């Protein structure tokens, strides 16, 4: 039966080629959009992380007392990380950012100990700010609520657009792929009718289609993976890297290669095997 599968691919060469090409094209388009979406999300996350909250400790507290507040802050819901910054560190940071002249005469006593707080969900920033303000020992909280609102809004729009886009593409892809397979098997209905007539079981008829679907699926998925990785490498190395800042870096190729490979293979083998079996279902009813 495996031989029948291979024989079938070679005897229906053009339709096999068409099926592989269509599967490949659909996967590359879907994969590219999915990777673009993933990268946009990563970028949004980075932007969100930059919009941290600063909680300043009451200046009457000593460094030990100030450090003792940390567990209280970590307990607050949606707080993802809390980093303590001493007066001295804060001063050093200022010195790095501003010129020596501006910082002349300024010492660490001008500044407070502080906490740099990152949160999971920007939309909850007002509540977190209130909780921080209510924590004993915290004198002042700086949180950019306007930025948080904008980030949340952009993030929501991006999520909706990407989901809709992926859904539309998935629908179109499934439609195109199933029609290609239907077309490929339509030519074979006579062959199936003859097989039925001479007493072939449905299992016997289906098996070569399953094997054929498997082979074409692996071929389509593998080629699409290779093409997608080539494309991604090109975009990462040649276009994005040279022109952008650190925050705009794409997810490294090695991090996405395995998930993309698995997704492509599963999708193309499923389409190949299930599509083929489903397409001939009607011809078996005689």
């Amino acid at each position, binding site marked *: 039966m495996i031989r*029948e599968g291979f024989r079938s691919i070679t*005897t*229906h060469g053009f339709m096999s080629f068409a099926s592989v090409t269509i599967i490949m094209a659909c996967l590359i388009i879907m994969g590219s959009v999915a990777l673009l979406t993933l990268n946009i999300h990563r970028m949004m996350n980075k932007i969100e992380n930059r919009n941290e909250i600063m909680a300043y400790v009451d200046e009457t507290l000593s460094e030990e007392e100030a450090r003792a507040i940390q567990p209280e802050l970590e307990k607050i819901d949606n707080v993802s990380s809390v980093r303590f910054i001493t007066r001295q560190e804060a001063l050093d940071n200022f010195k790095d950012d501003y010129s020596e002249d501006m910082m002349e005469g300024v010492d660490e006593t001008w500044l407070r100990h502080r906490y740099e707080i990152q949160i999971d969900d920007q939309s909850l920033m007002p509540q977190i700010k209130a909780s921080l303000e209510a924590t004993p020992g915290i004198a002042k909280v700086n949180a950019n609520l306007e930025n948080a609102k904008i980030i949340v809004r952009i993030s929501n729009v991006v999520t909706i657009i990407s989901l809709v886009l992926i859904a539309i593409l998935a629908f179109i892809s499934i439609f195109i792929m199933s029609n290609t397979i239907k077309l490929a098997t339509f030519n074979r209905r*006579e*062959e199936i*009718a*003859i*097989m*039925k*007539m*001479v*007493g*072939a*079981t*449905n299992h*016997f008829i289906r098996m070569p289609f399953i094997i054929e679907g498997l082979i074409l699926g692996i071929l389509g998925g593998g080629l699409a993976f290779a093409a997608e990785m080539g494309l991604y490498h090109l975009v990462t190395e040649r276009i994005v890297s040279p022109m952008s800042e650190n925050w705009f870096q794409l997810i490294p190729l090695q991090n996405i290669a395995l998930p993309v490979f698995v997704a492509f293979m599963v999708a193309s083998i499923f389409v190949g095997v299930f599509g083929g079996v489903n397409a001939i279902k009607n011809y078996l009813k*005689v």
Partner: protein
Amino acid sequence: MIEMKNVKVVYQSSDTVALDDVSMSIKEGEFVFLVGPSGSGKTTVMKLLTGEIRPDAGEIIVNDFNMRTIRRRKLPKMRRTIGAIFQDYRLIENMNVYDNVAFAMRVVGAPHRQIKKRVPEVLELVGLEGREKRMPNELSGGEQQRVAIARALVNNPRMVIADEPTGNLDPVRSLELMLLFEKINEMGTTILVVTHEKELVNAFSKRVIAIEGGRVTSDGMDGYFSYEIE
């Protein structure tokens, strides 16, 4: 062996009664012509015998299988007991003569060695030795029908049913084909030939069952004379 008793078939889509109270009995080893004009119900009989459709009433037994109650998954087993031949040959265009015949043996899971031995035997029987490598489109109509006959015979069926097998052939080729059927019948296989070719039927002294308007109108050895179409 075919036993039909009071068979009725109604096509629901057009509300047409295709067969009405049809009874006939064909014994093992017989050679029978089933004749009648277009739309008389001949093709419906063929479809009943191959299990493509089921009767709305009555009983049909084909080679010991009850065609009214047969389970769908038993149909392949039943179909292996008959060899079916059609007017349009129904060969697989991208397979050569040998493969078109061998394919019917592969379908039933015959071992490779047996296929290699049996296919040349049947090709010789139908007069196609030396043409194994030809593709169907390189053969004449008569030769293509011989390939179809070889395919029908290759699994040693108990019965061969042929639906208008000479429909696309000239009179000489048609006569040759009928002689081939006669030869196969002499080897013990039951033959049922569905046709509307009066002269061909009358050239052989065989049993003729005539059907018209979905009913059997005559059944005997009197040839096609008893049955007037025109």
